[in-house]
């Protein structure tokens, strides 16, 4: 089937022209026309091009560009797409940053370039672009930047101009259409017989459809800008030509050129940035996967929520300029004494190197030297042991020996290899905690597959986003997970842990069952096949997902070395090691029992509803393995305490054997921790401080919490609040004054000292609330909490921009992670958490952190919970308290004067308003993290005179 120009209306010639004046965001000084001779044409055929170029602006600024960004739009847009980059690049140059010249072309037959009257297949378009850059006498370094089919053309140019190329940037695009894979449905529709011409040329339907893909929708004025060059069907010929040029079939005339480019990009060594909008019905994540496979060194950022028109949906220009600064321009001022030297004076073009820890070479020696073992260490060491490795509580308690677990892991590992799982492949695990999950997980990591662990607490929509974003090659699931995967179209080949009847298996797309994998694997092992080489400590091992309580859930990548370091931290902190009985009621730690040589059990509970865990179930689990260590989540703990009355004397006896008990995942009140501790009278109660990106950063015991509270009461030092970028010396407290609640104005929740292998520092806030201070251990200075540990995450998955923002550089060879939490250290080295960075209130008199005022307000008898938020512009924000009261309010209202006065007297700093709500919005998973950003927006509406709505 040949698709070509014949199905399109007759093309008409028309010269290039300048865009009309007044298109929003388009500076007329950028526009120029240039006449270019078509290469290979007899008699020197020339075509007029319209392009946007900020070169003259840079000349006027008197700056010398460090290079040129060559921007190529797709179909059916035009150079207007890149207006934001032109503006940002010029603005950056004017502010003294390295100057980038941006040239954004209108491809021939598109935008305001000439209508050539001739169908221009891909190869011609790549040559056209080369003809233009020749005519412009463009010299290097050049960074190509393409979108949509313009991405292909720009890559074609990149492949053909290695001597000029210094980097590649792309927005949603594709260079390869897998044979046999259907092309995206919208394009299939547009290519349908009798549809192509009418859809793309005769009517503006294709254009309108594309413009409707923006999130949020484009303004009418911007839409008008995009439509400006395509007002008549005669001017839309190029749109149809582009669609017709999509090589849907191997025989298509552009297929060979596309294949040439697709293979050519494999050889491009230049730094590469892929910016992606996942909500794209055309260029879905599978095309991103293909590009990453071809250019594995590429930096990738997926803008969650953005789509095909990424250039309109997200600040791609800022991301691009930031990346260019990192990857292409090496800053000459760094470490130099010249000081005022022009940044443009010395430019080096280099392949960027992943900033990571010194790579540790593979081999057990390196692991041992680091004090850690590979995750499968004890599965090898104890493979002949008949001691219990783990116990499944469902349907009835069942002990699994190390011997059996070790064998299963090797069988499944061999089975996975047999069905084609390769090192680096991603395997999503949708299996509830169980012996099956443990065996599959260790089998995956043993063969170098990367396990993807997403929590059902994300909710189905969040989980779908997470699993899709993590792009698993395989999904191992129980029935509910696989049904969801089928219904929601999650990617990956499906493996079921349970057997399904044939028709059912086909219905949900199951290729294999776990039982099959085991027998396939056993056959391989029996035949003498060895398992593949062990992955190295620096290889990726797992993708864990954040809770999503602070924005869309983010995938966090851990290497083998880092996961082993998590195990090591658990060993050092809680003594979990060989022979320890561990009740694992908290997911990330639960899975690490075998890596520690510990005997583990997951109590009988619905993991999607932790608050269903009963005290009896915990006691049974403890009894089943003589546990000395118990890990639980705060939500589970509430119900455990509530159901304690049902415990039998035998249950109490079992619980009396527990030595350490830990509540992890979210803050917990001292009283709840104390009630739970009362059930385990011999146990030390702990709550760790950490996050998905760093699981065990600090730890505090119940006694430690009480000691911290006492020290606040006796405090003689007042933590300083950052003001004007400097810390204020603590005023001395009058010795004879009784302990006041205001003795600790910065307040916060004490989370204890750092764990053995962790370093915690504070980066002080400036007057604008930015954490710019040097990493410091100085006590009583409020700032962002920054951590470093061998068990901190490696990087965020395909979130280059987020990753960059989370890193705190400074010390070569050290990895510092910005937690996004704000707090201070005290003179005893304990960490106090004062809130989240985005919740810091920036008033005209300095910054205020929310937790301290909230704690003081919550001491009022008629307040059950408080949120302290800012309203108004940063720098002149007003402080507002939002309360849950006792008894709860039936609807939102302004606090009565007496309550408002009481709140003001507790807080100390000026409070503009006090509002009361029936309930504060919190995260789904823990019902404890208050969404202060949302409350701030809500309060802003109310306090500007808006209607009383629910927060």
């Amino acid at each position, binding site marked *: 089937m040949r698709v070509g120009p014949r199905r399109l209306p007759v093309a008409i010639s028309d010269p290039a022209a300048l865009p009309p004046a007044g298109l929003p965001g388009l500076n007329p000084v950028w526009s120029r026309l240039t006449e270019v001779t078509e290469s290979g044409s007899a008699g020197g055929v020339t075509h007029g091009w319209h392009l946007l170029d900020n070169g003259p602006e840079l000349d006027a600024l008197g700056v010398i560009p460090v290079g040129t960004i060559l921007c190529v739009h797709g179909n059916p847009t035009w150079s207007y797409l890149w207006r934001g980059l032109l503006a940002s690049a010029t603005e950056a140059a004017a502010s003294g940053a390295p100057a980038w010249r941006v040239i954004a072309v209108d491809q021939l037959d598109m935008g305001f370039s000439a209508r050539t009257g001739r169908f221009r297949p891909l190869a011609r378009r790549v040559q056209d672009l080369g003809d233009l850059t020749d005519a412009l006498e463009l010299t290097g370094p050049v960074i190509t930047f393409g979108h949509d089919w313009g991405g292909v053309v720009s890559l074609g140019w990149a492949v053909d101009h290695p001597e000029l190329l210094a980097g590649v940037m792309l927005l949603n695009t594709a260079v390869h259409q897998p044979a046999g894979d259907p092309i995206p449905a919208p394009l299939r529709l547009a290519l349908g017989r009798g549809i192509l011409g009418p859809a793309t040329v005769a009517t503006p339907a294709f254009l309108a459809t594309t413009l409707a893909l923006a999130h949020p929708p484009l303004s009418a004025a911007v839409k008008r800008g995009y439509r400006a060059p395509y007002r008549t069907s005669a001017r839309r010929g190029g749109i149809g030509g582009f669609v017709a040029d999509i090589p849907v079939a191997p025989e298509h005339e552009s297929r060979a050129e596309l294949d040439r480019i697709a293979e050519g990009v494999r050889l491009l060594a230049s730094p590469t940035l892929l910016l992606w909008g996942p909500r794209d019905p055309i260029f879905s994540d599978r095309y991103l996967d293909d590009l990453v496979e071809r250019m594995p060194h590429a930096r990738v950022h997926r803008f969650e929520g953005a789509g095909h028109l990424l250039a309109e949906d997200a600040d791609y220009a800022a991301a691009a300029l930031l990346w260019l600064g990192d990857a292409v321009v090496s800053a000459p001022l760094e470490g130099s004494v010249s000081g005022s030297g022009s940044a443009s004076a010395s430019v080096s073009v280099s392949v960027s190197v992943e900033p990571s820890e010194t790579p540790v070479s593979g081999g057990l020696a390196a692991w041992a030297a680091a004090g850690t073992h590979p995750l499968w260490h004890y599965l090898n060491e104890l493979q002949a042991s008949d001691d219990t490795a783990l116990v499944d509580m469902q349907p009835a308690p069942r002990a699994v020996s190390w011997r059996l677990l070790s064998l299963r892991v090797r069988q499944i590992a061999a089975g996975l290899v047999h069905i084609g799982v390769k090192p680096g492949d991603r395997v999503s695990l949708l299996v509830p905690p169980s012996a099956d999950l443990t065996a599959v997980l260790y089998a995956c990591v043993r063969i170098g597959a990367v396990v993807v662990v997403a929590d059902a607490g994300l909710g189905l929509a969040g989980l779908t986003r997470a699993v899709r974003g993590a792009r698993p090659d395989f999904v191992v699931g129980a029935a509910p997970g696989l049904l969801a995967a089928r219904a929601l179209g999650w990617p990956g080949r499906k493996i079921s842990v349970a057997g399904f009847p044939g028709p059912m298996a086909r219905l949900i797309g199951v290729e294999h069952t776990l039982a099959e994998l085991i027998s396939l694997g056993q056959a391989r092992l029996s035949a003498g096949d060895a398992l593949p080489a062990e992955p190295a400590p620096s290889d990726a091992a797992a993708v864990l997902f954040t809770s999503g309580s602070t924005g869309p859930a983010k995938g966090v990548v851990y290497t083998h070395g880092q996961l082993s370091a998590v195990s090591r931290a658990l060993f050092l902190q809680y003594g979990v090691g060989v022979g320890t009985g561990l009740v694992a009621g908290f997911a990330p730690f639960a899975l690490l029992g075998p890596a520690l040589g510990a005997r583990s059990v997951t109590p009988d509970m619905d993991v999607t509803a932790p608050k269903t865990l009963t005290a009896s179930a915990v006691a049974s689990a403890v009894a089943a393995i003589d546990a000395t260590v118990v890990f639980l989540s705060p939500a589970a703990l509430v119900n455990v305490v509530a159901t304690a009355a049902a415990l039998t004397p035998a249950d109490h006896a079992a619980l009396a054997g527990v030595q350490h008990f830990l509540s992890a995942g979210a803050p917990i009140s001292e009283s709840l921790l104390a009630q739970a501790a009362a059930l385990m009278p011999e146990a030390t109660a702990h709550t760790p401080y950490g996050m998905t990106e760093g699981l065990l950063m600090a730890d505090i015991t119940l006694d430690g919490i009480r000691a911290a509270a006492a020290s606040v009461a006796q405090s003689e030092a007042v933590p300083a609040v950052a003001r004007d970028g400097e810390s204020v010396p603590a005023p001395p407290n009058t010795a004879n004054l009784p302990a006041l609640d205001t003795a600790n104005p910065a307040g916060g929740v004490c989370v204890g000292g750092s764990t053995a292998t962790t370093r915690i520092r504070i980066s002080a806030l400036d007057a604008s609330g930015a954490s710019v201070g040097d990493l410091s251990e100085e006590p009583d200075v409020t700032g962002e909490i920054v951590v470093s540990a061998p068990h901190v995450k490696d990087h965020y998955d395909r979130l280059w921009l987020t990753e960059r923002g989370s890193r705190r550089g400074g010390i070569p060879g050290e990895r510092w992670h910005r937690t996004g939490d704000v707090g201070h250290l005290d003179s005893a080295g304990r960490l106090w958490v004062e809130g989240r960075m985005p919740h810091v209130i920036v008033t*005209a008199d300095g910054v205020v952190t929310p937790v301290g005022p909230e704690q003081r307000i919550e001491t009022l008898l008629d307040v059950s919970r408080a949120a302290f938020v800012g*309203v*108004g*512009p940063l*720098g*002149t*924000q*007003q402080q507002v308290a939002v309360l849950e009261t006792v008894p709860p309010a039936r609807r939102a209202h*302004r606090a009565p*004067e007496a309550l*408002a006065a009481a709140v003001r007297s507790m807080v100390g700093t*000026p409070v*503009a*308003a006090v*509002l009361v709500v029936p309930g504060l919005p919190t995260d789904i998973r823990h019902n404890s993290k208050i969404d202060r950003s949302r409350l701030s927006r809500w309060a*802003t509406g*109310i*306090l*500007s*005179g808006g209607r*009383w709505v629910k927060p």
Partner: protein
Amino acid sequence: MRVLVTGASGFLGRAVAARISAAGHEVRTFQRRPSGVPGVEDVHGSITTPADTPYAGLAYAVNGMQAVVHLAAKVSLTGNPADFEAVNVGGTRTVVQAAADAGVVRFVYVSSPSVAHAGRSIMGSDALPAAPGQARGDYARTKARAELLALAADAPEFSVVAVRPHLVWGPGDTQLIDRIVDRARHGRLPLLGHGAALIDTTYVDNAASAIHAALDAAERVHGQSYVITNGEPRPIAELLAGICGAADVPAPAWRVPASAARAAGSLIEAIWRARPGTDEPPMTRFLAEQLSTAHWFDQRRTRADLAWTPEVSLDEGFARLAAHYRPAP
């Protein structure tokens, strides 16, 4: 320094004249009635009398002065548009001209935040340029034009600065406080809207000290406009409750939806305009907007440029108001 204060018989003008006089300056005042400020020299006259009229009071009053603080204005919610024009625009033009002619070097024009207010909520913005085209009502429109013409006269040897105190109140205020208290006492003070809109106000002593600060800083900050407030926005209902509490009268107990109040305000305004008499209508659209939308400002530039901070907090202001209303023993 020798300073002329116009409009010193008004609530704020009196406080300003007293403040500047107490600071050791030689103060002369100019208005139709006695200022009642001890230690100042009153000159009686009207700013609507053309300055070149022989023996006009203004020419005499400004003679020999080094600075002028111009507060005299027609402050009212409604009235004859021609009067606003004559007093606020024509009067300011006359005073500016007379001051420049007399060799005055500092000129503080006391304006109003309403000169840049288009009826929407203001939450933490700094002083925007006066915009007569957008201003709501004759008062704001004419004050806006007056501010623009005063600032247009700014020159190296004639430093003009505009200050815009927002909702000045305090003991002895007949314009705002007495009316609120009087209406509340008779149970005729409703809350417009739900009463949560954040409003920033200016305690009278703070307004006076800020104007004094602008006079001191005039040569440094000439040509600029500054909004002046306490920097303590509160929900309007809390402010009314504070005022009523200080006067020991019941706080507003009933409310009128903001939209209804605006519509009613427009209607009442129209009726008042048509009917004879000079009293003020109980509600105007402008007032309804003022009392049901947020009005608070970014004070950083004001405080930094004028090297000024408010001395009297909101709560201290309420306490002083209560002392004022407390029956003498």
